[in-house]
């Protein structure tokens, strides 16, 4: 492992996305508002949850260059906690989501404190193995119901007023959660804090010599990433009314890495695109008789070998070229 000078050659985050105007945001909002009239709202809401999850994952990878292979632990544990809060304690969705997010943040603190000192591959392996502990716990703890998972989780009401069983109310709630999460991630990335993290990624020894407490910065972004993954997981439970061992399985950690990579790690919007692509492939190819897992695996391999910037990254590069 190199400890000297630039430690990463991950694609750098382009600053170009920042000022490209409110027009894009307006367009995105229109698309989000219109989506449920063209596609099944339940599916659209689920996609948004995974998009937020991918963005949260990318907050860690994109800013600090740390690849976590254990993010399913945060997503899944929040899914379970939120599910339990909704179903058994009868809490409203807002509180359940908050509890889920806090759980994920607490777990993020523990995982981060243990793994953050190690770099690169070591970090990936340690997060992966730690997450697997949560997976096994999901089989053993009394409230997770082992293989069955938490089924038929009631959605409750949003703000105590609107019934979330109405698919449109449920969808727009998911949109709200997604937008809040996404804007928060944008804000964090462009903040001084985010810039310090990027500097650490580019040249850690220099940042240490400048007096930055490198590890606490990394730990902080790890916790933020975990908390937002938790928010995504909790919302997913509300949407699909199910929290199961699939949510905490390491394949979910792999899938979220895949989404972020496919969309473009160096961009803010990339993971959203990646989430939409992967979820749509799974949804629309489900009845095609094709081996979906193999198709996605092949696409992923090609993506790593041929266009590492991801879909959005490549598009941005083309746009810069044409200018």
């Amino acid at each position, binding site marked *: 492992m190199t400890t000297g000078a630039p430690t990463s050659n991950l694609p750098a985050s382009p600053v170009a996305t920042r000022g490209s105007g409110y027009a894009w945001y307006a367009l995105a909002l229109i698309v989000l508002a219109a989506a449920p009239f063209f596609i099944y709202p339940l599916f659209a809401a689920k996609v948004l949850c995974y998009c937020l999850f991918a963005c949260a994952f990318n907050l860690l990878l994109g800013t600090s260059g740390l690849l976590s292979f254990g993010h399913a632990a945060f997503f899944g544990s929040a899914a379970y906690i939120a599910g339990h809060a909704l179903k058994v304690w009868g809490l409203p969705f807002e509180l359940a989501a908050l509890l889920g997010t806090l759980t994920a943040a607490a777990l993020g603190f523990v995982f981060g404190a243990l793994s953050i*000192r190690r770099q690169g591959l070591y970090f990936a392996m340690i997060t992966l193995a730690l997450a697997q502990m949560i997976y*096994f716990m999901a089989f053993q703890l009394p409230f997770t119901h082992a293989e069955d998972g938490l089924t038929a989780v009631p959605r409750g009401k949003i703000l105590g007023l609107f019934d979330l069983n109405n698919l449109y109310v449920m969808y727009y709630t998911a949109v709200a959660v997604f937008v809040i999460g996404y804007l928060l991630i944008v804000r964090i990335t462009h903040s001084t804090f985010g810039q310090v993290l990027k500097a650490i990624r580019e040249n850690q020894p220099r940042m240490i010599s400048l007096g930055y407490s490198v590890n606490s910065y990394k730990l902080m972004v790890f916790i933020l990433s975990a908390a937002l993954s938790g928010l995504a997981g909790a919302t997913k439970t509300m949407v699909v009314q199910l929290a199961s061992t699939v949510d905490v399985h*390491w394949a979910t950690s792999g899938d979220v890495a895949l989404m972020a990579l496919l969309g473009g790690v160096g961009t803010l919007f990339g993971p959203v695109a990646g989430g939409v692509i992967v979820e749509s492939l799974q949804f629309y190819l489900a009845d095609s008789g094709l081996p979906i897992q*193999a198709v996605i695996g092949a696409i992923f*391999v090609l993506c790593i070998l041929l266009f590492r910037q991801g879909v959005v990254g490549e598009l941005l590069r083309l746009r810069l070229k044409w200018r």
Partner: protein
Amino acid sequence: MSTQVLFGQLLIGLINGSFYALLALGFAIIFGLLGIINIAQGTFYMIGAFGAWMLLHYLGLGYWWGIVLAPVIAGIVGMTLEKTLISRIYKIDHIYGLLLTYGLMMFIMGMFIYFFQTAPRPYPVPPELTGGYNLGFMFVPKYRVWVVVVSVVFCFGTWYVIEKTPVGRNLRAATENPMLTRALGINVPALLTLGFGVGVVLAGLAGVLAGPIYSVSPIMGGDLVIVVFAIVVVGGMQSILGAIVTGLSLGVLEGLTKVFYAHGANMVIFVIMFIVLLMKPAGLFGQEK
């Protein structure tokens, strides 16, 4: 608790430990040499088992052919993948190696599930190894003894080759300093392919050995690889001896946990990893860098 249960679980632990050791050893070789986390290690384990099953069902070649040919087939598949795909990403960030092998695993597993479904297929114990020994306090099936013996022989054989022979010396040199090794006229890319092949062959061998015990299925190696990860972290990422010793001993420990606290059996290896990370982050046999 009867001694029979205790020794029964000890034996199962030893069997699992043998598989862990073979897989972890292959993993450590690949990681040390190529700097790649081969998450597809479990997939090559599955390919080994399926290779033996296919040889039996399509060509009528029995276990003894299988145990020789199937790991070789897995090795050829692995070396081809290394030469054509994996070797392209050595120059970029190492996390892409993890992601690439993850994609390959998805692809290979997906294809196997597509063609063979996930239902386990039985693979018979060869007639020469049926039956067992009655030790008075317990009954030991011959095949299980065979598995442990083969694993231990191959693990320490590999260790011997790497530590004591000229080929191993070159391999270690390529691990320590590939540039300098190359400058001395040693073909490092070929060594990398060879190293990857060796790691994969060990996984394939474990797969063939596991066939008669756990049946053959496309998903058989999926979760195993995560346990192997934990073992390698405990043993020290690049340590050959660490992988072997930790693999065997944690397998046994897992078996023992099943006797005393059945619920904790799946977790015990990860708990150990947790503790080791706190006390000795480089692993039991690793060196802090």
